[in-house]
């Protein structure tokens, strides 16, 4: 056995593309935006059901995607995501992914630009990082459970 801290755990969950409360999920995001539709049963009654039905009818503006960065430099929580130089979204988690040898991020981008292969720029201070939407999980060799 070896000690494993929060950093190790966060790397592992991020490589699997699992959303974390406070990062990908918070009171400003609906389950639809966060890609959690499979866990929402609209046939049942619950608090927030009307809001979800309304959002589905009116259209969803942003959705959560996995982003593979070009290099090793990580894009972190809160970094702006740009398309054609215009801010259009935000990084919610990001780190170097040791299993991939590249940096990865989760973040919200415009709903209509979530397709794998779509390219964005992430602003990190004065530097611009290039990122591409990829299917989740980032790490495809499975877990101990499955």
């Amino acid at each position, binding site marked *: 056995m070896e000690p494993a801290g929060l*950093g190790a755990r966060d*790397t592992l969950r991020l490589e699997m593309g699992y959303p974390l409360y406070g990062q990908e999920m918070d009171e400003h995001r609906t389950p639809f935006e966060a890609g959690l539709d499979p866990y929402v049963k609209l046939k049942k009654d619950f608090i927030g059901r009307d809001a979800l039905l309304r959002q589905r009818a009116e259209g969803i503006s942003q959705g959560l995607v996995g982003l593979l960065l070009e290099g*090793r430099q*990580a894009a972190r929580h809160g970094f702006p995501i740009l398309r054609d130089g215009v801010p259009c979204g935000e990084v919610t988690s990001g*780190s*170097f992914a040791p299993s991939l040898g590249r940096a990865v991020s989760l973040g919200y981008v415009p709903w209509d630009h979530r397709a794998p292969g779509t390219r964005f720029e992430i602003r990190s201070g004065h530097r611009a990082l290039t990122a591409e939407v990829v299917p989740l999980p980032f790490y495809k060799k499975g877990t101990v459970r499955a």
Partner: protein
Amino acid sequence: MIPKNLKYTEEHEWVRVEDDSATIGISDYAQEALGDITFVELPEIGKQVAQFEDLAVIESVKAASDIYAPLSGKVLEVNPALEEAPETINQDCYGEGWICKLSGIVETEMEKLLSAEAYEKLIASE
């Protein structure tokens, strides 16, 4: 591990001066505190920096940390090994894991740096 022949800063950089150039890196204490280093943003060659100004950025799984220039000077060389293997800093912070070299340094600025003994006291108090 604090080599006696180097000078240090309060921000945990080390510097080794030879003639009018200086080699810069981070201390063993710093690499240990950062954990596994995943990326180093190296300065541009030819860039002029002032003492204690931003020089580089080191990212680890835990955090991104600014590295400050221990002395004023012009960036002469950067360690190319760090582009593909930034973990070299974890493995050998005083040797193969050097960050960059500065030329045209000003000797009088050395007075603002810490000796190995003074640095040892500083980290003992942290």
